[in-house]
């Protein structure tokens, strides 16, 4: 299972993760907030997006990052939101680097898979 080797919170702006396969990922806290999977942001049953991603402030800070068990991160954002559990598998999937973006391009099938994943997710 994929897991981080190193987690660096770079001020309030971004989070850098080096994965067990040495792949580096760097996320802005805005991107993370937009991808929050908690029940307030994503409907638990249908998997439909509730949070309007474009309404997340452009400059949103991350206040605190803590490790949840062996499998996820908990993040407290500048807007006070802290209910999301960011599972490592999901974090890796949303890596914004060019290489990962290119790999996840065959969009249609992937999106459907995401929904299936959501139904079985464990937070």
């Amino acid at each position: 299972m994929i897991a981080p080797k190193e987690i660096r919170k770079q001020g309030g702006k971004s989070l850098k993760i080096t994965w067990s396969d040495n792949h580096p990922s760097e996320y802005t806290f805005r991107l993370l907030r937009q991808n929050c999977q908690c029940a307030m942001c994503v409907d638990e049953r249908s998997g439909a997006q509730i949070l309007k991603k474009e309404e997340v402030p452009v400059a949103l800070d991350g206040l605190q990052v803590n490790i949840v068990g062996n499998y996820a991160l908990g993040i407290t954002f500048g807007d006070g939101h802290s209910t999301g559990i960011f599972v490592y598998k999901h974090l890796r999937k949303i890596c914004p680097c060019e290489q990962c973006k290119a790999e996840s391009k065959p969009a249609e099938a992937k999106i459907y898979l995401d929904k299936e994943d959501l139904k079985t997710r464990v937070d």
Partner: protein
Amino acid sequence: MPIEISDAQVLEALKSVQDPDLHKDIVSLGFIQNLRICEGTVAFDINLTTPACPVKELLQSQARDAVAAIPGVEQVNVTMKAEVKATKGPDTAALKGVKNIVAIGSGKGGVGKSTVAANIAVAFAMDGAKVGLLDADIYGPSIPIMMGQPGETLIRDNLIQPKVAHGIKFMSMGFFAQGDQPLIWRGPMAHRAVEQCLTDVEWGDLDYLFVDLPPGTGDVHLTLVQTVPLAGAVIVSTPQDLGLTISKKTLRMLQETNVKILGIVENMSYYLCTHCNERENIFGRGGAKDASLKMGIPFLGEIPLDTAIRKNSDGGAPIVISEPKSASAKIYRDIARALAAQISIANFNSVKLEVVEEPA
């Protein structure tokens, strides 16, 4: 004139002794301490990663033989010690004295999870480890009866005092509702109770804290995997297909949350007839072993259906301590040692993870 023996010579000889689980020699692993040489006598300690090491005797005799083979050595004194390494997870303020938290789970109820948990915990203590046992089964808390200590717990300085019996500390969900009273809780209550049992109980310094889970994949499991870094989990199953299929669900849930599966224990493996001593495989044979092989998970052992195990559990003293010479007690001791080895391996291979804060 006796031959002069050097430290380097002794260490070189000891490098030939390998730890079969960690796949390294005992010198590189830092096990050798307190090396003293006085003329023909060589003395040293071997500091293992668990007192319940299954190869303790083997390492001791191999080390002794290796050093005795050095010219000039007349006597070798090997002292076996152990210092349990902690799970390298995030530091949580609570439970800071607890080195390893190990969950014991099953898919179905009634596979003997609590009996296995109680016997394994006591077996670890008999090998010299400091052990705690948390009975987190809100539906059927059975540890108080098995440990012979029902009744309420004491609270001191706002901390719940765990009970002590048979050499281990233990706490049970059963203490929240006495006698035949059930715990009728929705998720948030179960969550809070588990959290409280982990953080508001004065566990003190423990090498191992075993958590006896309820069956399935519910609130208690989620709280546990989200609240503490687990050293790993043990799955208890019966050999029959149905039990195994459902056990795999619990196993997959734990894997999904990155919990290392330390091994599978097969309970109620067979019945030894008390009259003719013939082995009767009531639930089929070797199911759990086959499944563990297929999934690449260590198989820790098979426990027979034995009236004595049941009687001792009901009587408030696990069989490992009440009938230590019985065949079933020996099986439990071996399983405990196999598990101790797996925990040491897991800790040896893991890296400590923390969030590093950098200025912007």
